[in-house]
C-alpha cells in the first residue's frame, strides 16, 4: 500500500490544467489547475460561489463546454456526460443529490449500467450485488426501498455505494455531510479511510473547519474562480486557510453577545404534533418551554427527535394536527396554515432548501419576496420596484453573491441559495424565527455574518428557535437549550450549564 501511495504521488490520477468556464457573460472559472492523487484526500475549499461545484461538474462531464484540459492517467479526456466520466473512473456525489426518487436503492445503484442477463435487467442479481455492496460498506439500508422513502443521510450514503459500484478511482464529494448527523458522518469518514487505503483519490468539498482538520491530506483553494494555491494540510493551519479563501483575516469564533431577554414571546404547554395524522404516535409529545424576546433558544436532538416537526407544527405546516397550548405574546397562537403563522409573525427556515425552501426556476427577487407578497402588493397588484428594493436590501444584509437579482435561484451556488431562503424569511419581519440548519452549506465568512445577524435581530427584540446539527454552533449561539428525544423534552440547560456531554446524553434520552 505504501509503495502504491508513494508511486501515485509522483503522477496524479487526474490532472486539470487551465480550466476556464463561463455562463453567458459571467466568467466563473479562470485558469484553474488541480492535481488529484491516489490514496489521498484533497479538500477543495473556497467561499460560496467560488466555483468549486462548477469545477467538479466539469470533471464529472456535466458541463462540457469549457476551456483547458483534463488528463486522466496521462491521457487527455473530455467527458461529455456523467456516464462517460463514470466510465473513466470518476464518480461524483453532487451537492444536489442525483438519485431517482421513485426507483429502489438497488435500481439507483445500477442506474445507467445495469447488470443484465440475456438482454434483460437481472433484477435478482442487482439486488444481491447491491446488498453485498451495502454490507461491505457497513450500511444498514434496504435495497428494495424506494429512495424517496430514505432519509437524506441514507440517500447520501447510497450515492457513495453507487460510486463504488462503478469501480470509481476518483470520488468527488460535494458537501456530503451537510445533511448527516454525527454517527453518520463517522460512518462516511470510515468509508473515506477505506477508499483511501484502496488507492482511490478523494476530492472533498466542505465549509466545515473541523472536517478539513480531520480528513484533509492536501488542500486546494479557489477564490473568485481562480486557483489560489494548494498545500499539504499540515502547512495550512485554519487561520491561513481562511485567509486564502477570503483574502483577509476572519476570526473563527461565535460572536454571541449575551442577550437581555425581554417579555415572554412564545410559551408552549404540553404541545404535541401529529405529523402523520391523529391515528399515529405524535412526533412531538407534550413539550413545554418558553422563549423570550431577544433570546436564542437552541433545540437539540438527534435525527428523529422531532425538533423539526415541532417547528412545522407551530408553523401550521401540518394544519391543525397539533395538541396542547401555545401562546405568542401572551395570546393564544392560532395554528391553521403557514399563511396564518406568517401573519402572526412566525417564520420557518426549513432544513431542505431544495425541497421545501426555494422555488428553483424563479428569480432571486421572486423567491425573496414570496412570503411577503401580501404586504408588497396593493389590492393584489404587485409592485416590482418595492420587490427589487426588498431583495436588494436582504441580499446586502446577507452578503448574497449573484450576477443579478433576476437570476434563477437554481443557478446560484449552494451557499447563495441558502442565503436566498433566509432572505425570504427576514423579509417578512418576523417576531419569532424558527431556524432549522441556518448555516447549511454556508462559507466561513458568511457564517460569521449570519451569526452577527442573529445578534442584531435578537438585539432588536426578535426571538429565535435554533436547530443545528453542529454541536459547537448550538452551544455557542444558544442563550438557553432544550433537548428533545423521540419527541419528548428530556432536558433544559442554561448557557452556563450546557456541555457537549450533557447535551448528547439528553439527546440520547439518558438524562
Amino acid at each position: 500500500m505504501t509503495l502504491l501511495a508513494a508511486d501515485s504521488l509522483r503522477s496524479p490520477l487526474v490532472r486539470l490544467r487551465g480550466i476556464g468556464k463561463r455562463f453567458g457573460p459571467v466568467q466563473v472559472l479562470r485558469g484553474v489547475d488541480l492535481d488529484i492523487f491516489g490514496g489521498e484526500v484533497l479538500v477543495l475549499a473556497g467561499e460560496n460561489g467560488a466555483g468549486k461545484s462548477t469545477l467538479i461538474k466539469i470533471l464529472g462531464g456535466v458541463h462540457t463546454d469549457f476551456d483547458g484540459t483534463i488528463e486522466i492517467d496521462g491521457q487527455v479526456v473530455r467527458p461529455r456526460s456523467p456516464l462517460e466520466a463514470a466510465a473513466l473512473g470518476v464518480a461524483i456525489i453532487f451537492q444536489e443529490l442525483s438519485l431517482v426518487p421513485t426507483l429502489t436503492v438497488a435500481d439507483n445503484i445500477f442506474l445507467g449500467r445495469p447488470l443484465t442477463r440475456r438482454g434483460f435487467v437481472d433484477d435478482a442479481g442487482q439486488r444481491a450485488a447491491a446488498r453485498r455492496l451495502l454490507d461491505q460498506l457497513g450500511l444498514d439500508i434496504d435495497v428494495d426501498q424506494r429512495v424517496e422513502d430514505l432519509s437524506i443521510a441514507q440517500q447520501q450514503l447510497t450515492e457513495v455505494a453507487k460510486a463504488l459500484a462503478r469501480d470509481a478511482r476518483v470520488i468527488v464529494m460535494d458537501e456530503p455531510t451537510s445533511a448527516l448527523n454525527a454517527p453518520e458522518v463517522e460512518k462516511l469518514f470510515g468509508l473515506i479511510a477505506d477508499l483511501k487505503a484502496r488507492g482511490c483519490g478523494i476530492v472533498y468539498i466542505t465549509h466545515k473547519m473541523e472536517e478539513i482538520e480531520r480528513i484533509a491530506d492536501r488542500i486546494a483553494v479557489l477564490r473568485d474562480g481562480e486557483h489560489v494555491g494548494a498545500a499539504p494540510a499540515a502547512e495550512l493551519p485554519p487561520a491561513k486557510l481562511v485567509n486564502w479563501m477570503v483574502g483577509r483575516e476572519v476570526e473563527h469564533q461565535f460572536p454571541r453577545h449575551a442577550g437581555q431577554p425581554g417579555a415572554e414571546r412564545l410559551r408552549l404547554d404540553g404541545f404535541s404534533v401529529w405529523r402523520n395524522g391523529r391515528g399515529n404516535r405524535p412526533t412531538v409529545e407534550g413539550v413545554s418551554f418558553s422563549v423570550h424576546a431577544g433570546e436564542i433558544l437552541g433545540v437539540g436532538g438527534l435525527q428523529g427527535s422531532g425538533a423539526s416537526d415541532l417547528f412545522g407544527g407551530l408553523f401550521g405546516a401540518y394544519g391543525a394536527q397539533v395538541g396542547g397550548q401555545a401562546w405568542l405574546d401572551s395570546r393564544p397562537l392560532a395554528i391553521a396554515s403557514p399563511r396564518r403563522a406568517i401573519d402572526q409573525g412566525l417564520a420557518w427556515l426549513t432544513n431542505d432548501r431544495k425541497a421545501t425552501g426555494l422555488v428553483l426556476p424563479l428569480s432571486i427577487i421572486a423567491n425573496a419576496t414570496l412570503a411577503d407578497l401580501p404586504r408588497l402588493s396593493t389590492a393584489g397588484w404587485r409592485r416590482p420596484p418595492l420587490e427589487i428594493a426588498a431583495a436588494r436590501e436582504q441580499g446586502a444584509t446577507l452578503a448574497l453573491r449573484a450576477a443579478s437579482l433576476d437570476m434563477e435561484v437554481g443557478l446560484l451556488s449552494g451557499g447563495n441559495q441558502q442565503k436566498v431562503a433566509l432572505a425570504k424569511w427576514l423579509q417578512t419581519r418576523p417576531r419569532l424565527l424558527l431556524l432549522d440548519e441556518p448555516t447549511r452549506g454556508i462559507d466561513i465568512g458568511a457564517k460569521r455574518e449570519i451569526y452577527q445577524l442573529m445578534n442584531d435581530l435578537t438585539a432588536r427584540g426578535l426571538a429565535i428557535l435554533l436547530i443545528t446539527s453542529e454541536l459547537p454552533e448550538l452551544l455557542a449561539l444558544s442563550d438557553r437549550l432544550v433537548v428533545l428525544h423521540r419527541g419528548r423534552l428530556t432536558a433544559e440547560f442554561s448557557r452556563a450549564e450546557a456541555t457537549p456531554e450533557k447535551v448528547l446524553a439528553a439527546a440520547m434520552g439518558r438524562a
Partner: protein
Amino acid sequence: MTPEQTGSAFSPARLWSNPASRALIALVLVFVLGCVFNADGAFFKLGTHRDTLRQASVFGILACGMTLVIISGGIDLAVGSVLALVAVAFSLMSIHWNWSPWVVLPLCLLLGAAAGGMAGGVTAWFGIQPFIATLAMMVFARGLAKTLSGGMKVSTAVKQADGNYHYVDVPAIFRFIDNRILGGHLSMVTVIFALCAAVAWVLLARHRWGRELYAIGGNEEAARLSGVSVAWTKLLAYAASGALAAVAGLCQAAQEQQGDPEAGVGYELTAIAMVVIGGTPLTGGRGGIGLTLLGTLTIGYLDKILSINAVPEASRLMLTGAIIVAAVLTQRRRRS
C-alpha cells in the same frame, strides 16, 4: 464573487439561450417560409394575414388559458369540450330563447369558469392528477353539450310546434362578434383574442396571483410553506382557463352561426402545442403569455402557408407534427 462581465451583451449564444428569442426565431423562419412559398403572391395579401389571425384566434384564446394552467404545473384537457358546451348554450339562449346578450354573455363566461373550476377544485382538494380531472371534465362537458342540444346543431333553423323548421335571424351579438373592423382588415375575434391575451398577461406578470402560480408550478411545497393558498390559486387557474374556453366558444358559435356540440374536438391539443412551441415547458414554473402568442402565430401561420400552397390536409398534419417535435427539441433547456 463579483462576476465580471465579458464579451458583448449581444452574442448569438445569449440570443439562443433565451426562450423568447428562440420562439421569435421560429416565427421568423415560418415567415421566411411564407415569403418563399408565397402561392403566387397570396402570402403578400392583407386578407391572407387577416384570415390567418382570425383562424388562429380561437386557438390562441384557449392557449392563453392553457398557459395559466401549465405554468401552475397542470394541464387542462377540457377546453375543447367546454368550448362546445358554451357554443351550444350561447346559441340556445341567443337564437332560440332570444335572451339579451347582457344576460347571455355573463352566463356563458360563468358556465365556462364553473366547468373549469370544478375540474380545478377536484385537482386541488382531492389531489387527483390534473390530467385525470380535466379528462373527466372533457368527457362530461361534451356529454352536457350533447344533452343541451339534443345531439343536434343549434342553428337559426328553429323547429316549430308543428314540426316544420322556421328560419330566424342571426342574433346581433353573433354578427357583432363575427364582424370586421378597420375597413375590413381586422376580425373582431382577433381583437377579442388580443384582449384575452392582454388580461392574462397582466395577471401573470403583475398580479400576486400570477406570481403565486409560477411559485406553485416551480415548487408546490415551498410555495405552500411561504403562505400561498395553493388550492385556491390553482382552482382559479382552471376557472380562468374555463372562462377563456367560454370566450373561445362564443367566437366559434358566432363564426359558425350555430352551436355545434361536436365543435372543438382536439382543440386542447392544438392549444397545448401552441404553448409548448412558444417555449413554456410542461413542467411548470416558467414561461408566459408572450411566448404563447409567438407559439400561436407560429402554428397559425404554418397552417396557413401549407393550406395556401394546397398541401393536402394529410401531409399538413404530418408536417405539423414533425415541426412541433423540432421546435420542442430546440426549446429544450440544455446545460453547457
